[in-house]
């Protein structure tokens, strides 16, 4: 486990540094990055196997006592989500290599190493049992995404990158304040110890800390009204970057929220969370409907879907948490794939604007099919994973008698379907735009198609094994909610 953790956290960093050392030699650089990301992904899958068999695994970094040092914890929740996240980064890197020569502009050698840093950050964020290390992990993720977003220096990127950096920087600062509150109240930042000590605090302090971290994680997760950085910044980045961001970044926020608020037993915040979840899912879907650019539509969908995950969490029942976890597992790959397809579309016709698109279904039926599967899944239609995810969250809502949020969720589902129809009508149906030329689109299309196809297959696999995944989500949710399992595993 020690080795696995190191491969997921330190390995990608070493690979990034190594790749930058040989940055003049493109092929070698790509190989080093791929090896780093590949072993990290492989390690996460092995970890999944071990945790599924033996339960929660921990490593005390540097061998220090949990009260003094940092503990890394792979419980069922982390072990379920992390492998999917790392696999996504790996697949996107393949796509990136196909696309790189054309769409990358300046500084193409940076994308691989930066993805390595991102990988390390994501692994650390998912595995850490220490609240301050979570802060550091967030910073790793954010700084690599800041640079990924802005390193080409285009005007739109710099402008939207500024909102992105500034808003997330404020969230990071708030995180530090939150750490100060936690430390002042409990004298520790170790999450297992916190689960013990938070219970002894007065309700005001406990709920206040919960609310504060809801704002912090909520900004990262892009919930209403803290999502503004997302739809401005995502569409301006190159496809691969947006795809990774879309799949992972907000999800790290929601992951942290599920872990923190469930472990700390902050059920009192459930009502507020449900209200915000409802507004988030509807506003996100409305925002998507308002857009006329593929990537912007997809960006707003992320917000809407975060609402569903928040709904699952806000119910504070085992079924709800399980639904949120399954939604997370389903959403990460599906969203990534949709952005990859969005990239294919842009690559084919040179734009993602709906008013300059059309007729793709007859010209490029493969792309239409690659789009249709994740789009239907995202809209929550059977027989895809999105249906099961939505189903589990909504049925948990009905079980908990949270009727208003259930109807909002259904309504948002309709709006999502409508906006997917908007893309379909705009891009795939109708006549091709007049100025479409016969030029071969740029980039290595085979690699890009292959990577996208692979990812679509991945989402289909998730759909196929939705049953097993749901069982795992239930186990993970029950383990999270019975806090003692986590506490014992860390402190024993």
């Amino acid at each position, binding site marked *: 486990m020690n080795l696995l953790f190191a491969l997921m956290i330190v390995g990608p960093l070493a690979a990034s540094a190594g790749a930058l050392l040989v940055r003049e030699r493109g092929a070698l650089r790509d190989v080093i990055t791929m090896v780093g990301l590949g072993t990290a992904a492989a390690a996460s899958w092995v970890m999944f196997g071990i945790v599924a068999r033996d339960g929660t695994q921990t490593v005390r970094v540097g061998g220090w006592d949990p009260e003094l040092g940092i503990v890394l914890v792979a419980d069922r929740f982390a072990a379920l989500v992390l492998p999917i996240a790392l696999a996504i980064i790996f697949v996107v890197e393949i796509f990136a290599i196909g696309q790189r020569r054309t769409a990358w502009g300046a500084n193409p050698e940076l994308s691989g190493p930066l993805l390595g840093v991102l990988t390390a950050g994501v692994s650390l964020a998912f595995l850490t049992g220490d609240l301050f290390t979570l802060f550091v992990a967030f910073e790793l993720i954010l700084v690599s995404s*800041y640079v990924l977003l802005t390193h080409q220096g285009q005007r739109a990127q710099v402008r939207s990158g500024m909102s992105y950096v500034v808003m997330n920087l404020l969230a*990071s600062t708030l995180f530090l304040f939150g750490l100060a509150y936690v430390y002042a109240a409990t004298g520790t930042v170790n999450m297992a110890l916190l689960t013990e000590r938070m219970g002894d605090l007065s309700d005001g302090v406990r709920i206040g800390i919960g609310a504060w971290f809801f704002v912090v994680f909520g900004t990262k997760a892009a919930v209403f009204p803290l999502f503004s950085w997302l739809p401005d910044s995502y569409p301006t980045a190159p496809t691969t970057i947006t795809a990774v961001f879309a799949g992972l970044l907000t999800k790290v926020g929601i992951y942290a929220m599920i872990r923190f608020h469930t472990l700390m037993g902050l059920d009192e915040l459930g009502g507020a969370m449900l209200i915000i979840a409802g507004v988030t899912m509807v506003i996100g879907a409305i925002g998507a409907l308002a857009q006329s650019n593929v990537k912007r539509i997809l960006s707003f969908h992320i917000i809407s879907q975060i609402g569903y995950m928040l709904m699952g969490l806000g119910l504070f029942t085992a079924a709800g948490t399980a639904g949120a976890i399954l939604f997370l597992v389903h959403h990460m790959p599906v969203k990534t794939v949709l952005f990859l397809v969005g990239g294919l579309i842009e690559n084919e016709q040179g734009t993602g604007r709906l008013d300059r698109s059309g007729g793709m279904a007859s010209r490029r039926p493969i792309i239409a099919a690659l789009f249709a599967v994740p789009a239907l899944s995202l809209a929550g239609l059977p027989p895809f994973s999105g249906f099961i995810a939505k189903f589990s969250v909504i049925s948990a809502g009905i079980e908990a008698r949270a009727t208003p949020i259930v109807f909002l969720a259904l309504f948002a589902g309709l709006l999502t379907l409508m906006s997917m129809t908007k893309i379909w009508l705009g891009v795939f149906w109708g006549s091709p735009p007049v100025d479409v030329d016969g030029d071969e689109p740029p980039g290595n299309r085979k690699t890009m198609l292959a990577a996208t196809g692979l990812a679509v297959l991945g989402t289909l696999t998730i759909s196929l094994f939705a049953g097993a995944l749901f069982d795992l989500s239930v186990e993970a949710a029950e383990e999270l909610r019975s806090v003692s399992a986590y506490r014992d595993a860390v402190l024993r």
Partner: protein
Amino acid sequence: MSVALLFAIAGLTAVGIYLITSRNLSRIILGFVLLGHAAVLGLVTAGGPPGEAPIAGASDQPIANPLPQALALTAIVISFGLTLFMLALAGRQQTLSGSDLVEDDLEDRRLAARAERAAALADLAEQAEERDEQHEEST
């Protein structure tokens, strides 16, 4: 916990918030530096009362809590890096726009303009309809 430190935290935070909500990038960055200071002071304050420097064996007096100091140091350095990055980004923005003012997002403004145009068109259509009706009534 010392009120003086809390006052410092409150003051830095207030000025920081005031600065980051301005439209000027230099001021926004200044604001973040101040907010970062406030957060770091918060961490140190949370760690307990002052004491001797945490060097083992240097003094018989109780030492200050070293852990928040380590955390604060990490936080300072991270803020340091990010401040430099923001400066570079602000610089890049200047090469593009010639100023350090925050620009609104174009797509969002475009959308708003479209929405306004659509609303205006709808109003026009309504007015035209009313005119037609009046016309019909008068004939």
